[in-house]
């Protein structure tokens, strides 16, 4: 999936958890979920579950550990979709 297709889908998923709306407006590949969007780290697990549901994929603990920003999230989602 291209960046242009993925980012809007990701934005929909993470919107409910975002604590910094300004940073969310300017979301780009380098946006960090915790540092920039101020998402409570406990909610990262909920985002993972929502991503699994949206893309019908399964994310392992190792994937989760790496999924800290938009770029890594897109890479992991794409690698799962391709496999």
């Amino acid at each position, binding site marked *: 999936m291209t960046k242009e297709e993925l980012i809007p889908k990701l934005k929909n998923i993470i919107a*409910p*958890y975002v604590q910094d709306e300004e940073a969310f407006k300017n979301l780009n590949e380098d946006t960090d979920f915790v540092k920039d969007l101020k998402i409570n780290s*406990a*909610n990262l*697990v*909920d985002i993972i*579950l929502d991503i*699994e549901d949206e893309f019908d994929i399964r994310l392992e603990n190792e994937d989760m550990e790496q999924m800290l920003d938009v770029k890594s999230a897109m890479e992991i989602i794409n690698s799962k979709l391709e496999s």
Partner: protein
Amino acid sequence: MKKRVVITGLGVVAPNGVGVTEFTDALKSGRSGITFHQKLKDLNFSCQIGGVPNISDELKSKYFTNLQQRGFNSSGILYGCIAGVDAWKDAGFEKNEASELDYETGLIFGTGTSGIEKFREAIYGVDEGNVRRLGSTVVLQTMASGVSAYLSGMLGLGNQVTTNSSACTTGTEALLMGFDRIQNGKAKRMLVGSCSDDGPYIWGGFDAMRVMTYKHNNNPEQGSRSMSASASGFVPGSGAGAMVLESLESALERGATIHAEVLGGEINSGGQRQGGTLTAPNPKAVQRCIIKAIENSGINANDVEVINGHLTATSKDSLEIENWTKALNRNGNDFPYINSTKSMIGHCLAAAGTIECVASIIQLKEQFIAPNINCEDLHPEIEELIDSEKIPTEKLDMNFDIMAKASFGFGDVNACVVFKRLQV
């Protein structure tokens, strides 16, 4: 010198009224909050009636953010947070995410069990081998101190934040623990309260014990019959009550509205001796609890004008009245007025103590005694002990200054507190 402690904030989520205004109105008019629940019938409960507060989604959204509501399934925490925030605002404070951390205010908010519906969800998930998909909210909603965790974060409280649990004594115990802390100078203010979930999973164990009434499924409002000859078991309830306790000096300093003073109280246990069991009270310990509460309050037994009893509408109501008559050494026409809030709201379990303490303070402040409903056929054993006119079945307007409230719980535990009207 121990500090005097007053109540400056009230909040309540009761089956017959959400918020102090609605609840006061319900108390005055003797309105029952007991309704039939199809779900209990479908699950083959003997008792298919109960007391559940009416909380709209709109009201819920005033207290919980959209994020907090995601995956939220804990009625006790819902009720507790609404009552707690209301009490805090009633005391003249704001609920503000950016408020400064307040090290002078603590929180003791009790419960019997937390988020039992959420726990059920989690257990199904775990048993299906799907623990990885439970999400992040199970622990916070099912830990006993969940309600305290949610509330302290909403309000930014920085003194002791904890949860107590002592069956149906929980609420009154929370109040007395907060009272101790302020009296001894360890906090200026304590938000105290208790809450209880509603529904089949919390009530089922009691239904199995056959201690809930099965005779009023067709007339729920008549089901909770405290002190009545035809009482046939309690009606389960749910909800939350909360109070802001504060040192008198702190309340005066900031010009807060004072609802009443907490003169003192006592907490004890009958140790399941002398007739006490896991489920029945040791009468000697109950009497001692009342006597000590009066001593600790610096008053005489004769000073007690009104009692808000525990009075669940089981066969133990007569024993409770007998215990009061012995502890106070007063009977017949000399006995204080007494009422049972449970006749209107059922037995709200862990929430009972604080909902009923809030009810007591409202009656003391507004100078009325709420009616005992469903008690037109007073139990003959009770009538032998005290005059029937001491158990008003209609609202009674009366000037009085001192009210005692007691709660008793499984495990043979007791708590009694004495409130005084305070005119500053």
